[in-house]
């Protein structure tokens, strides 16, 4: 039994910093086997500069999303900022971006945290607001300057990037969200304690009981509730902590690789945490044909997954050219050293506050 | 105008770690004969609040040096000195006071150079310039680039610095009393390309005092303050070209026309915080072509200018006034000007505001 959602994507925007740290350099510095990057499916990752943070990246993605959606600040009724790298532990990032973009004061605004799927939840909440008539348009941002303990396995992939979506009614959309399901349990696979600069994880436990179980469960529920089959989908975009997991979960679900590869961006830009799956979706929206159906599954440690079925319509073609494309951002790159990476991301111990 | 500079004194521009604001003020006034009998004190200083955590510096100075006379502190960024002289001249010309002591005093070495640089940057617009990453060398560099694009050779600017150092060698109170060459520029530290450390003023503490009197000196060793004029310019980012120093050009043109002055002959001190600016000014006044010949100027920045004599911000204008007074009535660096007139030019930042003082022997 499916509840008609009557909501969709009106605009999207992405921001990926140009600077790249090669996985090979991480392996060399920290004494990992040189074959490890390939095993992880990672070539290089995007690195934000010193004066960037989740707010500044989220602002850019949101600006593009708003331009594609063709709405004004006066027409946005809610701003949700999904991140696990908030500049402030207490003080919302959503308000800074909203103010800088001229969003009206009469609105909802909040930061959401659920590891990498907070922005996904933002979309779920938006569907409810739009359908309930409490919002005409909402702005959902997923943005992270992902942290990794230097030398840890995560150092290969934890990267910086942002994505934003304007969610609106189906009639205003370039892609409708025809169905969505969220599956959440208490599963401590990856976490970051208060005041800890870097996250910790339970290594192989982050696989089967976490990533795979939750994505497969959410997707299976989606298929059950809608009556859709995996063959009904032209693309499948998954949360992508590395270049391998999405291909593995696709296999588990019986989805062929060719449907996954277009939305697989992590090998070239790293894992942008909250933006991960949703940048993949944006890339697919920029390539898809009207009528294509896209399966999207986010994953957030702790743990949960949102599965969406998105159907693209004619209006998407015009929207694509209204902003920079994901593929252009992936290709606009310049390599930096591990030293520069450390400097950019403040990994070096310094006397600051002078 | 019935106002005359009848004397003064200066302290060597240097890193005076052993002297604070009050000590410098005391030292310079103690050495100044004419300063003993004044009925008003004006203090010109820009950084005491930041450098020394001291408000109301004027009051604290007069208490310290034991002059129980009215006092006021003047601040107008880099052109504070000439602002102070202008007010002193007005006080005596109005008849309200007879002899005004103008003391310029500045401490720039209380904190490391990067902090002094930060303080100095605050002479720009904090909200619209400083926050955006604009510091004084940025404007001087962008202006230099414009001039180079329009045909001025890079070594034209280096020539200025070389000439300033040459002049400073024989000026006792100058900070950098050594020659430099074009070679020095090759390895010079870049501040903001193409501007190097050698294109920038010397940062040192200083104190200078002059006495402005309603009557000239009986022995003839005084100069009359004939004119003091100011022109407000445009913020550098609002100009067609950053190198359009229209306020300074307008003022200097007006004054040289009015008094029929040839800058090649008269005693003149130009505000050379960065080598870009005096070159830009001389070009716009028509004194300099692509040959960049400074040899034609007989008494230009005899002191060594801000570049080599030094630029103790709030005190600089007083140094300049003293130097022109000296070169007209006595000698400076072994030179004595034959001209009747002398000119002092000062700028606030990159010509945000320009001031000119015309002195006559």
């Amino acid at each position, binding site marked *: 039994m499916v509840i008609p959602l009557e909501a969709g994507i009106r605009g999207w925007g992405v921001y990926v910093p140009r600077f790249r740290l090669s996985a090979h350099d991480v392996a060399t510095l920290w004494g990992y086997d040189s074959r490890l990057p390939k095993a992880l499916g990672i070539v290089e990752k995007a690195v934000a500069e010193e004066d960037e943070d989740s707010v500044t990246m989220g602002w850019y993605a949101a600006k593009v999303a708003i331009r594609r959606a063709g709405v004004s600040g006066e027409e946005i009724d809610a701003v949700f900022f999904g991140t696990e790298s908030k500049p402030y532990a207490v003080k919302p990032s959503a308000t800074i971006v909203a103010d800088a973009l001229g969003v009206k004061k009469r609105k909802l605004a909040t930061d959401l945290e659920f590891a990498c799927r907070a922005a996904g939840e933002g979309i779920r909440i938006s569907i409810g607001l739009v359908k309930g008539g409490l919002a005409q348009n909402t702005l959902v941002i997923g943005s992270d300057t992902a942290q990794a303990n230097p030398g840890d396995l995560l150092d290969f992939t934890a990267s910086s990037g942002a994505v934003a979506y304007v969610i609106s009614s189906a009639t205003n959309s370039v892609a409708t969200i025809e169905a969505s399901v969220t599956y959440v349990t208490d599963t401590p696979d990856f976490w970051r304690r208060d005041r800890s600069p870097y996250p910790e994880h339970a290594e192989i436990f982050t696989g089967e009981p976490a990533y795979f179980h939750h994505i497969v469960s959410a997707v299976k529920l989606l298929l059950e509730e809608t009556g859709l089959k995996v063959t009904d989908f032209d693309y499948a975009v998954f949360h992508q902590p590395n270049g391998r997991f999405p291909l593995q979960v696709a296999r588990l679900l019986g989805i062929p690789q060719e449907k996954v590869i277009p939305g697989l961006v992590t090998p070239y830009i790293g894992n942008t945490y909250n933006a991960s799956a949703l940048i993949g979706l944006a890339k697919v929206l920029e390539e898809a044909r009207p009528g294509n159906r896209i399966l999207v599954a986010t994953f957030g440690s702790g743990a949960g997954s949102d599965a969406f079925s998105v159907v693209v319509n004619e209006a998407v073609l015009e929207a694509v050219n209204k902003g920079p494309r994901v593929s252009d951002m992936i290709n606009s790159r310049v390599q930096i050293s591990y030293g520069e990476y450390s400097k950019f991301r403040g990994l070096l111990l*310094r006397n600051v506050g002078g | 105008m019935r106002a005359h500079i009848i004397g003064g004194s200066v302290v060597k521009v240097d890193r005076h770690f052993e002297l604070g604001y009050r000590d410098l003020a005391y030292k310079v006034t103690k050495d100044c004969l004419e300063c003993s009998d004044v009925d008003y004190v004006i203090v010109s200083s820009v950084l005491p609040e930041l450098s020394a955590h001291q408000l109301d510096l004027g009051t604290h100075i007069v208490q310290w040096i034991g002059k129980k006379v009215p006092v006021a502190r003047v601040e107008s960024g880099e052109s504070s000195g000439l602002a102070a002289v202008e007010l002193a001249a007005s006080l005596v010309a109005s008849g309200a006071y007879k002899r005004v002591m103008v003391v310029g005093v500045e401490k720039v070495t209380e904190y490391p150079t990067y902090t002094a640089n930060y303080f100095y940057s605050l002479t720009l617009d904090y909200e619209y310039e400083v926050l955006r990453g604009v510091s004084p060398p940025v404007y001087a560099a962008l202006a230099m680039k414009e001039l180079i694009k329009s045909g001025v050779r890079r070594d034209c600017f280096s020539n200025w610095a070389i000439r300033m150092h040459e002049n400073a060698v024989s000026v006792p109170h100058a900070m950098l009393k050594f020659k430099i060459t074009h070679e020095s520029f090759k390895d010079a530290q870049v501040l903001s390309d193409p501007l190097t450390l050698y294109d920038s003023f010397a940062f040192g503490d200083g104190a200078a005092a002059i006495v402005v009197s309603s009557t000239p000196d009986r022995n003839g060793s005084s100069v009359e303050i004939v004119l003091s004029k100011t022109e407000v310019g445009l913020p550098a980012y609002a100009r067609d070209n950053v190198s359009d120093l229209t306020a300074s050009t307008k003022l200097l043109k007006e004054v040289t026309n009015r008094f029929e002055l040839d800058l090649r002959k008269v005693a003149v001190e130009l505000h050379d915080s960065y080598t870009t600016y005096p070159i830009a000014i001389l070009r716009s006044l028509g004194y300099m072509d692509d040959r960049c010949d400074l040899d034609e100027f007989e008494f230009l920045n005899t002191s060594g200018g801000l570049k080599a004599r030094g630029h103790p911000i709030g005190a600089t204008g007083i140094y300049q006034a003293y130097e022109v007074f000296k070169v007209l009535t006595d000698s400076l660096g072994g030179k004595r000007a034959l001209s009747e007139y002398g000119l002092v030019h000062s700028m606030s930042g990159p010509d945000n505001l320009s001031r000119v003082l015309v002195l006559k022997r």
Partner: protein
Amino acid sequence: MSLKLSVPQFWRVKENQYKLIITVCGECGRKTMFKRPVCPHCGSSKVEYVESTGVGVLESFTKVYYKTNSSEDRLPELVGVIRLSEGVRVIGEIVGVREDELREDVKVEAVLRRYLSDDPYGVIYYGIKFKPVLTH
């Protein structure tokens, strides 16, 4: 800990920092950057304000090595003059590009970046800088 930067001041100037506001003079027609009550060219108070799209061309720039802080994060800074598409000049920092990559005459766009933060516990101040536009 005591705040080094003023919270009210930064809140007050937010509009000019988050956006590029142009003052257009109703008297002489000239445009000047940033919001101001009076035209700096002709002195008239008959002014209007327009928000710039933030797109422009980098006319010239300089690499700044001048230190104003002991723990400067980003040196050299790239600071330049940008002519916005509205025909008015603005000055700002150029980001997202290595110093040896940047060229004059490139198209740039306004981006929000951190200006400064009252570390370690004070407020973070954001403002506009410029980034070369991605070429497709």
